[in-house]
């Protein structure tokens, strides 16, 4: 307990310290200091994470409490952190990949002026900090704190080059889409508090609490949680922000897509698996949305020409896989894919960054080609990444993807078929990207060609390390069928329970595996052969255009949601507010003035009339006196009604 308190403190506070240090001192430190401190803090956090991990391995899960966040008569939300198998694993990935990305960034962002450099690193540190809070939190509220925190950081980082309007737009879009998801998450939390009076994992995620919830409750809560996950992990329909998030510096993309942010949704669902397992409905929804997202994004990725866009859609697609895994109950498979994906996607993004760096911020792959010789390290590492993501054994992607596909098959063969299709497309577009970028002839300007150079060590070192990890990470989850031990799923038993028996024979599994791998390989080879010589020009077929334009989803959203809402808001502002509500208020004033203008004419200056009115008044008084009973009755009726 004691040591863990210190460790968790270290893990969390180092990035925070980095944020404050760089954020507040942005005008004072040199770039060198900034870089060292920022990277160093994350690295220190990584070291602490390793110790924490070992501690958990040796002594089991620990909850650490610092103070009460909210402590009232009705609800208690402590600022608790839980270090267990799941979170410690995520800690390693986040801080590990994170520190590599920091290291990479020190070189990548060299051209920035010192204050902005500091700003960049402070955001980055804050990002890590938020993500750590997210995974460490021992209740949903603390998780939500991190959850929103990463949303904020993504906003800040995507809009890092704030003078560019489009980038800001992308940043805003990311934040708002996330917020929509967050709303779902929040509602789920409210629901939990209202029903259970607590949001602590150890009180919510227990069998007793399940008895207090009706099936509607569970479905509702899990669906809302899933909405949260949708936003953060870019699932249909909230995925459009992620490709746009490419507006940020490339290392940021790597951070968002690999180590942090998008994995939050998977983490959360895995964390709450007890609830999710109890709702058939939610699971189906998750699986369907997951696989649809996987396919949708893959089709779009095939037609993109921006190196980062391809990778971005690939991320969306891979996330879809993970959700498929979650939907079919393969929680450890999903986590496994998160980890392997973290490695190879970080690798790919950083590799892409290296390419872009070399190409002087040229991102269109049609203007690249033949970079193999110019950027050897980048090339090799990138290739490893591509192979890993394509699911070619024995690289890491193969194992994780296969685990999900096997579980999907067990649930429904259709999932599997679609999953394999997606895997094939993944292999295709990744190698389309690889081929167009690294093979063939250089297609850029001569000026760019002259300046092509391999990136400095600070950038290549992370590439190399990540490439090694991408290649070997599969080792933590080699299935027993292959003679492995599947350390990961064993490790996660306390959180997700024993893996479900799939009920598939070994031979069937082998067959499935073989089929998927061979289809992926076919697609891979097809891509290489197709793009060895030529590049994609503007698509001509209808379908091609449709994919190229990302299924027109942005336009669709714009037409169906954004514009009508905008018009609605305009209607409220200009018609309802100005004319009806304010009009009623001003109208009352005008009415008084109008009646003043009219009534005063009675006072016409003629004594004769005045006396006439007086006589009439007297007669009126008499009338009232005669009819007092009926008037009284009338009033009584009025007041009664």
């Amino acid at each position, binding site marked *: 307990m004691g040591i863990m308190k210190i460790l968790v403190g270290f893990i969390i506070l180092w990035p925070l310290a980095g944020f404050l240090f760089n954020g507040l001192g942005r005008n004072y430190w040199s770039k060198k200091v900034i870089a060292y401190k920022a990277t160093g803090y994350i690295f220190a956090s990584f070291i602490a994470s390793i110790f924490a991990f070992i501690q958990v391995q040796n002594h089991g899960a620990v909850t650490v409490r610092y103070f009460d966040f909210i402590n009232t008569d009705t609800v208690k939300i402590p600022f608790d952190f839980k270090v267990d198998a799941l979170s410690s694993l995520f800690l390693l990935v986040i801080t590990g990949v994170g520190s590599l990305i920091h290291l990479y960034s020190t070189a990548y962002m060299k051209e920035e002026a010192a204050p902005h450099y500091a700003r960049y690193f402070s955001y980055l540190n804050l990002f890590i900090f938020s993500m750590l809070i997210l995974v460490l939190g021992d209740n949903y509220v603390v998780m939500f704190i991190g959850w929103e925190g990463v949303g904020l950081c993504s906003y800040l980082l995507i809009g890092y080059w704030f003078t560019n309007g489009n980038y800001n737009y992308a940043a805003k879009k990311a934040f708002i889409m996330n917020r929509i998801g967050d709303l779902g998450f929040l509602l789920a939390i409210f629901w939990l508090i209202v029903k259970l009076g607590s949001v602590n994992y150890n009180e919510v995620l227990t069998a007793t609490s399940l008895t207090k919830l009706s099936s509607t409750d569970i479905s509702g809560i899990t669906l809302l949680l899933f909405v949260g996950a949708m936003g953060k992990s870019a699932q249909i329909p909230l995925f459009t922000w992620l490709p746009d998030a490419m507006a940020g510096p490339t290392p940021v993309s790597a951070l968002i897509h690999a180590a942090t942010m998008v994995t939050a949704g998977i983490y959360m669902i895995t964390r709450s698996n007890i609830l999710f397992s109890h709702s058939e409905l939610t699971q189906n929804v998750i699986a369907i949305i997951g696989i649809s997202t996987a396919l949708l994004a893959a089709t779009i990725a095939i037609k993109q020409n921006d190196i980062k866009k391809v990778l971005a859609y690939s991320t969306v697609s891979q996330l879809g896989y993970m959700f498929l895994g979650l939907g079919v109950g393969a929680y450890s498979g999903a986590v496994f894919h998160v980890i392997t994906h973290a490695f190879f996607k970080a690798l790919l993004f950083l590799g892409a960054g290296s390419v872009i760096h070399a190409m002087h911020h040229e991102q269109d792959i049609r203007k690249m080609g033949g970079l193999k010789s110019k950027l050897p390290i980048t090339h090799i590492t990138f290739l490893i990444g591509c192979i890993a993501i394509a699911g070619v054994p024995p690289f890491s992607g193969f194992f994780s993807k296969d685990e999900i596909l096997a579980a999907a098959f067990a649930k429904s063969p259709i999932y599997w078929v679609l999953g394999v299709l997606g895997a094939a497309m993944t292999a295709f577009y990744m190698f389309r990207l690889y081929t167009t970028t690294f093979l063939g002839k250089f297609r850029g300007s001569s000026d760019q060609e002259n300046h092509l150079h391999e990136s400095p060590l600070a950038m290549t070192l992370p590439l190399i390390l990540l490439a090694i990890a991408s290649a070997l990470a599969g080792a933590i989850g080699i299935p027993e069928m292959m003679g492995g031990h599947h350390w990961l799923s064993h490790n996660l038993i306390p959180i997700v329970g024993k893996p479900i028996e799939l009920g598939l024979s070994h031979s069937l599994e082998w067959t499935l595996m073989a089929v998927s791998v061979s289809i992926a390989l076919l697609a891979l080879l097809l891509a290489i052969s197709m793009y060895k010589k030529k590049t994609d020009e503007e698509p001509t077929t209808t379908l091609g255009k449709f994919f190229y334009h990302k299924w027109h989803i942005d336009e669709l959203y714009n037409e169906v949601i954004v514009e009508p809402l905008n018009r609605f808001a305009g209607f409220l502002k200009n018609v309802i507010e100005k004319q009806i509500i304010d009009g009623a208020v001003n109208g009352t004033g005008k009415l008084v003035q109008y009646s003043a203008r009219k009534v005063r004419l009675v006072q016409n200056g003629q004594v*004769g009339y005045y006396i*006439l009115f007086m*006589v*009439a008044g*007297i*007669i009126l008084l*008499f009338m009232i006196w005669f009819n007092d009973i009926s008037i009284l009755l009338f009033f009584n009726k009025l007041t009664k009604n």
Partner: protein
Amino acid sequence: MNIVEILFYALSVFAIVCAIMVLISKNPIHSVLWLILVFFAISGHYILLNAQFLAIVNIIVYAGAIMVLFLFVIMLINVKKDSEPQKQLFVKLIGVIAGGSFLTLSISLVKQAMPLVGKTVPLKEGTIGLIHPLGKALFNDYVVPFEISSVLFLSAMVGAVLIGKK
């Protein structure tokens, strides 16, 4: 029907006719004269009611002083017969309707007033209208208002002077 009652009716009709004449005569001087006749009729009523003091005062004050004052003023400012433009007909009509409805209203009220049923006014009888009891009452019970009414005259005097001064 005895003579007193005949006198009552005659005076009443006379007074009302004269009053109407006050309204309809074009010449203001004629109006004044008609009004004086009304006052005389009313004084006649006072005498019928044996309120001799008031009858005399009425003639002296109203017919004698006040109406003469009116005549004076009319002559002073020399209002010609036709100098008063007539009000529009409908204004007159409304005036008559208003007055008429006031009359019918109050008469109908009086008709329904139960306590008045059977009450009569003794004519030619009673001593309270004579100077002696009135004087006694005035200087015993009513001395305070009597004195206070002097204030009224004072203020009227001051006022008349204030306004009348050039």
